[in-house]
Each structure stands twice: as structure tokens, then as C-alpha cells.
């Protein structure tokens, strides 16, 4: 069954068409990668999928009902979490607190209940803490729990953002360039974490430049070029697709 349906999505900025009539499906329990050269429209598409931006045309449906037009925090409540290309951590808060903020979507204590310490707030707080600690262990950051996010090395910050996104209790998680700036050992650690997350029942969509990682982990790949989808399929077919080689891998080879 397809969990996410993207239909004819177009997003224009003035005269520039950043995403041009893109459609694809994401199947439950799979890892889907979106690749494409710089400026292909990947991040714009990501923002449209998560409510941070709205399409000019087209729709996005999640679990069979429309997601387009929902504000970002509502999208999170529906079960779609995301990370950012430039990590958006809460720098002065500890790793544990960052993940606890992720639990916001699944907890209820409001101003009044907190001020009066109404029954239930304390147990909710305790359960949220336990869950946050569990997620830090899942991504292997338990030792950093009390460190401010600002003090953590870059590679671990990406893992922390993933743990925070997981804390929102998502069915679908969108990762925007999770391997950017990671070294080889950090990338393989990331791949392990992604498998564990998928095995825990979370469907993944990954925008990524690291071809090794994309080819290794993804079940299916969507290739964007200048806003349009030029190919879609499993990694071994994408690798041979002449259109992709010309538009994307060719250009990549020129760069290096």
C-alpha cells in the first residue's frame, strides 16, 4: 500500500519552477531516496511534503487523506517527521532535552496543568524522559545525554536530530541530506541507524548526495533534474539509466 502519494506537484518561485509536475509514491516499510544535482528542487519538494511550503499545483496525500495545506506542526501530529539539511537543533539545550522537545507532539501538559502540577503531568514527564533516553540509546548517543547540542561533533548532531524526529512518533520520516559532512565511519553508523529505524516500522524518504549510501540503503530512487522527475526505480536500474547518467552522474563526474 502506498503511504505517501505525491501527485503533479509544482512549486514556482516567481519565474523559476523549482518543482515541476512531480508524482511518485512511497510504500510502507521502504526506504526511498530522492537524488539529483544541486538546484534540482529536492529541498523545495521536501518542504512541500512536510507543510513548510505549499505547492502551487498538485496534492500530497498521506495514508489516503490529503496533507497539502496543513501547517507543519499538524503534519508532525499526523505522523510525518523531518530533519533539516542545516541541522535545526536547540543549541543551548542538552541532547536529552532536544529529544524531549520531540515528544511535544505526543504529550499534552499545557501551561495551566504544568503551573498547577495537575495529576498526570508528573507521570507524563517521566514517560517522556524514558522514551527520550531509549531513542538516544537507539542512535548511540546515550553518553551525550547531558551535553548541550552546541558542544556535540557534527556527525553526532545529525544523529541527534534523527532521534528528535523519531521522538515525534512518526510513521514516515523525511531526512534531508543526513550524510552531509559525515566521514566514512560516521556514514556507516548512520546507515545502521537507518536500518534499525526502518525495522522498527518507520518508512523513510532520504534526500542524499552520497551515492554509495543511496545505492546501499534505498529500495527505490526518484531522480530529479531541474525540478522534473527524470527517472524512478530500484538502484540497479537507476545506475544504468541513460537519462540519469547524462543529466546527473555525467554532471557529477565533471565536478570531480
Amino acid at each position, binding site marked *: 500500500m502506498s503511504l505517501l502519494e505525491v501527485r503533479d506537484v509544482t512549486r514556482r518561485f516567481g519565474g523559476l519552477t523549482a518543482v515541476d509536475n512531480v508524482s511518485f509514491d512511497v510504500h510502507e516499510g521502504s526506504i526511498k531516496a530522492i537524488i539529483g544535482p544541486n538546484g534540482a528542487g529536492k529541498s523545495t519538494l521536501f518542504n512541500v511534503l512536510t507543510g513548510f511550503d505549499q505547492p502551487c499545483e498538485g496534492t500530497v496525500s498521506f495514508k489516503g487523506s490529503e496533507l497539502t495545506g496543513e501547517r507543519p*506542526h499538524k503534519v*508532525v501530529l499526523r505522523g510525518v517527521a523531518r530533519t533539516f539539511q542545516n541541522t535545526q*537543533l536547540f543549541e543551548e539545550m542538552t541532547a536529552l532535552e532536544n529529544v524531549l522537545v520531540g515528544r*511535544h*507532539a505526543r504529550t499534552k501538559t*499545557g501551561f495551566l496543568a504544568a503551573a498547577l502540577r495537575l495529576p498526570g503531568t508528573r507521570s507524563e514527564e517521566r514517560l517522556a524522559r524514558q522514551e527520550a533516553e531509549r531513542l538516544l540509546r537507539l542512535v548511540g548517543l546515550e553518553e551525550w545525554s547531558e551535553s548541550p547540542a552546541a558542544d556535540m561533533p557534527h556527525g553526532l548532531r545529525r544523529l541527534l536530530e534523527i532521534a*528528535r524526529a523519531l521522538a515525534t512518533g512518526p510513521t514516515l520520516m523525511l531526512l534531508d541530506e543526513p550524510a552531509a559532512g559525515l566521514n566514512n565511519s560516521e556514514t556507516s553508523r548512520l546507515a545502521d541507524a537507518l536500518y534499525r529505524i526502518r525495522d522498527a516500522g518507520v518508512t523513510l524518504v532520504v534526500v542524499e548526495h552520497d551515492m554509495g549510501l543511496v545505492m546501499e540503503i534505498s529500495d527505490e530512487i526518484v531522480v530529479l533534474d531541474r525540478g522534473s522527475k527524470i527517472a524512478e526505480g530500484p538502484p540497479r536500474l537507476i545506475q544504468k539509466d541513460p537519462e540519469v547518467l547524462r543529466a546527473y552522474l555525467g554532471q557529477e563526474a565533471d565536478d570531480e
Partner: protein
Amino acid sequence: MMRAKLLRFTPMALITLAIAAGPLFIDDRYLLKVLTFVAINVVIVTGMALLFGYAGQISMGHAAFYGIGAYASGYATTTLGLPWIVGLFAAIVFSAVGGVLLALPSLRLKGHYLAMATLGFGELMKIAFIEAQPITGGPDGLGGIPYPRIGSFEMAAPVGTYLLAWGIAGLVLLLVRNVVTQRPGRAMRALHGSELGAMACGIDIVGLKVRVFTVSAVLAGIAGSLYAHLVGFVSPSTFSLHLSVILIAMAVVGGSGSLAGPAIAATLLTLVPFADAIIPGLSRDALALIQDWEADVYGLIIILVMLFAPGGVSGFMRRRRAVARDAS
């Protein structure tokens, strides 16, 4: 565990006891009145700490809420002849409405632009206080505001108002502390850290900003009500930009992410113009000098804090604690 808890709560308990017992060993009426102003400023600065130190929003118009609270309470108890508690309630309701109104620009504006918009709000309200003569008494002010009273029990200055103001300040600090240490407090700090990140965590940042602005406005309104009943007279000149700037100074000197820091800063900065109350034998000339240069003294303090202690009082306390931890 028990010892750690004891160590944490003992200083709080001692401070509370010392404040509560204040009137027993202070028989100087002037000093008690000054200390009542300290309590009032602790209430208002706690709202500023929420807004500025936790949620990372700025308001340069908070004097307006102080004024709204003072006039609402004053009008209800004098012109309308209603009981004090109704006046306090009116102060809360009207400052809350003002808070929601001020929250609206905050949804679209950030940083300097938000500062300008809130500054404009403050100035608008100041003009409204002058122009709404039938309610506020215009430039002449509104006088004859009675002391707080419940039934036949009057809380007169200085002892009654002192205990009332500190009672409310203590309650406010306790309730707000509960807020900042739990889910809503984390959401505010998240908003401060990264709005995008906060949204991605499912935080309704619009709703959160409106709540924070409203709560901080209500705290200023309560402080305004206390002020009106303590002094008995309110006039527009009190609720000026000057006051808003002093409030920001208290929040900045207090440091972000803390309630104790701003409360301590509010205490110290409130005492500046009343230096004669705490320094016995301070000459009249010296006091006049301090009062004339009050704004400059505040400015100087802000600059020094920014240069040498960017974390303010709370940052200083955090560093002291970290040093103590490393040493043990």
C-alpha cells in the same frame, strides 16, 4: 538523593522565611515600601523572563500592560466602587486582551522589527492613557485608589501591602517555575533555539507565542494592579518607554533561561533609585545624584553586563555551580 534535595530547597526556604519575617524586624516604613516595589518588579520581571529569557521574544512595550493593570484596577475600585478583588480580576482580563493584541505582530516579526512594533504599542497605549480622560483621569491621573481589602480585612501600607505583594510574587515564581521546568518551558526554549526545529517537533509556534505574550502581559497587569493599590494614585508618566527599558534591563542583567537571575536583577536594579533606604546615612546630594543619573546608571550596568558577564546573573550562577561541581 535526600541530601541533594535538602541542599536545593534549603536556600529557597530560608529566603522565603526571611522575606515573610521582614516586617518583624524592619520598622522603617519607607524601607518596607521600597521592598514592596521590589516584589512588584519581581512579578513583572518574571513575565519578562518567560518572554525574553525563555521564548526569545522581545517586548519594548511592557510598561503598557503595567498601566492597563493599574488603570483597570484603579477605575474598578474608585469610579465603579467595586471590591479590590474585582479590580485585580479586571487588571488580569484587560492585560490578557492587550497581550493577545501585542502577540499578533510577533507572529510576523522578529528581532529589531518586533522591538519596534512593541515599542509602538507601548507609545500608543501611553497616549490612550492620556486621552481616555473619563476613565484614566487624563494627564492629571487617577487618585484615591484604596488599599487592597477583602471584606473588612484591609491590607494597608506598608506591612499589609508588603506581605500581599511578596505573597503574590512567591506564588507567581512557584507557578512559573513549574511551567518552565516542564513541557511548555521546553517548547519556549525550543522556539528561542530554532523556530524551524520547533515546528518540526510539532510545536504550534503561533499558539505558543500568543500564550507567552499573554502570560507575560497578565503578570505585568497584576503588578500594575498591586502598584495602583500601594501608591493610591496612577498617572500616565509612570508607564513610559523609560519603564519598559528598565524592565528589559532587568531581564538582560538577569540572564536568559532562568527565573532566579531576573528576580535578583530586578531586586538590585529596583533598589538603585532608593539607595538611601538600604544605605543608612547616604547624603541627600549623593541620592539626588543617583536619581538624576538613574537612566545612565542602568545603561552603564547593561553595557558592563554585556561586556563582562554576557550570561547575566543566571550565567554567573551557572558558572559558579559548574566550578563547584568540578571541584568536588
